[in-house]
């Protein structure tokens, strides 16, 4: 396949069908059936249906969906922990589907690591040896891998727990060990499979902050699977929403909230406080004749809530500019309406974002 310009992960036309004679289903018309009909007709389950996306280097890309939407299968297909039925996957230019077992192992050892929902720690090893496991299977000598493991443990805030057993740690600390294990081999890509779903809400928030911090510090490409919309919005630069194996919408948090592709997505994002996600360009309007165009100036990418101080200081409409060009104005009423979460801007298509807002 032709690797597109420098994408960290590039997926095209990916299918995973579980069940007898999956290839045959894929070739025939049955592949277009809805899940229930497909299972009744063929006994097969299409967990991933014709999924394609590409992740830029250094990006945090979130795949979000409810349980059974196929997101965990999707992430496992990327390194062929589950063998895909069809499609193309390339990670940093390497064709994953064509990789030999040795190449695949090499990919898993050096370039892509994964963090699991249930941690997958080895209870018979102490924390240090758990973190060093990936290096151990690569054949790194003991002293070097232990040194590296200690470094990583202090990076995730677990100094001094070297000799503890995993079951002596709390859930949050166990997942830090899982994170450290994934980071130990210094991979280019980190895959997270619902890593914080099994944790308490408070600890989950800490761990999300930890991921944000790590992303800032080590700058890895991250693909993050979650069923939690607020987690997706908090972490994801771009978010893909999956339903029944397919991606129904892919875009930034703003785009999902501002212009849901269908009722399913709209339903999902209904409770999201718009003023905290959307930027001014979603609510700005062309200036009317009576508007005074000498109010404060704000960038179009300013989140609505952050425009409140400016609106409080001046009674004049805020001028919204992009690249030095005026694209519209926003007055106090517009801001209040958006903050009240009223349905007005939520109806898809009623108020398209100003020109060029699409990805």
């Amino acid at each position: 396949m032709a690797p597109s310009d420098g994408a960290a992960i590039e997926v095209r036309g990916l299918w995973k069908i579980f069940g007898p004679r999956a290839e045959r289903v894929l070739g025939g018309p049955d592949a277009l059936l809805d899940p229930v009909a497909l299972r009744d007709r063929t006994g097969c389950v299409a967990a991933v249906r014709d999924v394609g996306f590409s992740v830029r280097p250094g990006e945090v890309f979130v795949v979000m969906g409810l349980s059974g939407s196929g997101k965990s299968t999707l992430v496992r297909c990327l390194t062929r922990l589950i063998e895909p039925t069809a499609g193309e996957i390339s990670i940093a230019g390497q064709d994953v589907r064509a990789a030999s077992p040795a190449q695949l192992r090499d990919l898993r050892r050096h370039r892509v690591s994964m963090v699991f929902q249930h941690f997958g720690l080895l209870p018979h090893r102490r924390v240090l040896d758990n973190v060093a496991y990936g290096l151990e299977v690569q054949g790194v000598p003991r002293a070097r891998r232990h040194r590296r493991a200690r470094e990583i443990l202090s990076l995730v805030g677990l100094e001094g727990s070297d000799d503890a057993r995993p079951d002596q740690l709390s859930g949050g600390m166990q997942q830090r060990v899982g994170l450290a294990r994934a980071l130990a081999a210094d991979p280019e890509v980190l895959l997270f499979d619902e890593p914080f779903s099994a944790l308490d809400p408070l600890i989950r928030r800490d761990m999300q902050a930890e991921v944000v911090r790590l992303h800032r510090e080590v700058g890895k490409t991250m693909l993050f699977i979650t069923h939690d919309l607020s987690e997706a919005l908090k972490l994801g630069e771009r978010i893909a929403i999956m339903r029944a194996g397919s991606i129904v919408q892919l875009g930034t948090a703003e785009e999902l909230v501002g212009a849901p592709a269908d009722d399913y997505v709209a339903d999902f994002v209904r409770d999201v406080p718009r003023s905290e996600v959307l930027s001014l360009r979603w609510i700005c309007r062309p200036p009317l004749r009576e508007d005074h165009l000498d109010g404060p100036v704000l960038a179009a990418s300013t989140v609505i809530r952050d425009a409140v101080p400016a609106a409080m200081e001046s009674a004049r409409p805020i001028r919204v500019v992009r690249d030095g060009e005026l694209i519209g104005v926003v007055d106090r009423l517009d801001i209040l309406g958006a903050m009240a979460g009223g349905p007005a801007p939520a109806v898809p298509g009623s108020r398209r974002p100003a020109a060029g807002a699409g990805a």
Partner: protein
Amino acid sequence: MTSPPAALSPARAAPPARRSRRPLPPWLAPLTGAAVAVAAYLLFRGTAPLPHDDDAAQFGAVNDVRDWVDANRNESPVFLFFVNYVRLAVGGLHDALHLVLDGLGWVGLIGVAGALGRLAGGRRTALVAMLGTGSFGVLGLWEASVDTLALVLAAVLLSLLIGLPLGVAAGRSVRLRRLLTPVLDVMQIMPTFAYLAPMVLFFQIGPASAAITTMIYAIPPAIRITALAVEQVSPAAVEASTSLGATRRQTLRKVHLPMARATIALAINQTVMMALSMVVIAALIAAPGLGSDIIRGLSRADVGVMLPAGIAIVVMAVVLDRITMAAATRGPVPPGVSSAWLRLAAPAVILLVAGIAARLLPAEFPREWVLRFAGPVNEAVNWAKFSWYGATEAIRNGVTEALLNPLQTVLTTAPWWLVAAVVLAAGWRAAGARPAAVAVGCLLATALLGLWQHTMETLTTVLAGVVPALAAGLALGIAAARSPRFAAVQRPLLDTAQTMPAFVYLLPALALFGATRFTAIFASVIYAVPPVVRLVEDGIRNVSPVAVEAARSCGSTDRQLLWKVRLPMARRAILLAANQGIVMTLAMVVVGGLVGAGGLGYDVVSGFSQRTDFGMGFAAGVATVLLGIMLDRITQGADGRPSPRKSP
């Protein structure tokens, strides 16, 4: 009572046939079936019997095969290049082990046992191991015990050598597991007597064939529990390992095996225990050791000869159980070099002391330390027999006259097709069409073997044993599940009972009731009750606590909780318990052939003692297997059966 369905939904006008069938009470079909069977029996009684003939053509054919093998043992390539080598290799392994154990001397062996006990468990395990090993000498059975130990070790080594790799492979491959499961199923329901004759045919009598027989008996838990252990390793850990680029071998070595270690140790423990109970039976094919004393005692009804050997076997079982269980339950070894040396220090000291003691003490176990009690024991047994004669005689005769004889008469005089039809109907209702067909096939095959009548006799004994065994097991199991205190008292008793080799159960039965059918039934009840109790108790205990809590929150009484929630939800476990109880009763009833139970067991025994009866013994062994499969299929309510002696 609910109103009739027609009134409920007049719109759904069911076809008349269906509607008339609806109100039938569920007990009507079995009752009608039973009535038909009784009527058929009364009508056709004695019409199509299959009487027993000691010189049936089938037996002659087996004898011919035996003669052919005897004549060609050193010419046929199968024997020359395969069977004989296996015999030599296994025999060599046994001899080597025996040489080592013998060479250690009694002091040395006690020392080694202590060191192993210290290494696996702690001070207490070491003490139990040393006292236990020493008691072999005190019982005056040092030589025989060493013989038995060598045989057990040889069989266990072979079992583990084959069983562990196979188990690990089966744990990782669904296909291999599917392939092995039915084979292991049959191996486990096969009564132990069944494969003695073929072994003799191939490997002649002696330690080699005894070790192989023992191995066949002991290997299923080694494979099964190991496979289970590997299979149950957390898939999350395995996936994590794979995602980090570990090869299959690395994942096996670093994830599967360490995480399955404790359960694999349990597999080894079970293998040892099974081997120990089989070596006694292997004495029938001239295995050396304690078994021969027991067999001799059984055949002469001489409790004084049996008792020391029985005690020695039990002690050996306890010692080996403690050592292997301690290894299984021990936590992970703490890291660090110093603690590893520290762990070895105490065992080393024990060995050193034993080495010094060996120089000071005589090489043979001193005669004056031996405790002899055959005389007093026999006197006590005679006294008990004599003074309780009234009671034991009344029980024995009562059961024999009121239950055994009528039942046996019914089964042996009923036409064969009627018995087959009843088996088919019962199997169909209890387990479905396929198991029922298999059951009937097995039953008819026993007729083809020329052993119909003896099979019916054995079936009588089994049926008579199963009912009290299941009733007692169910009652004790429920009681234990309801009262933790009762369970705490009962559990060590069950543990002890399950570590005891089957033969030991014949001892008290023989002492009380002499050599009769009743003795075998009595022993089989004692033998089958512990696993039934355990399975029932665990089944009830494992009922989802959420469901129990929900029922309790609705205001259920304890009794309602038991009958409406716990028992129905533990149904699978209870069915499995019944299945295990029946299979184990059969195994013991067959062994009971040694003490006058008659039937197939007796045929097997006489097959070994008389050359002309070889064919009949061989066929009887096959027939016991068929009977076992038949009973198993009919009662097969639960799949995925664990090993009968597997302690949870």
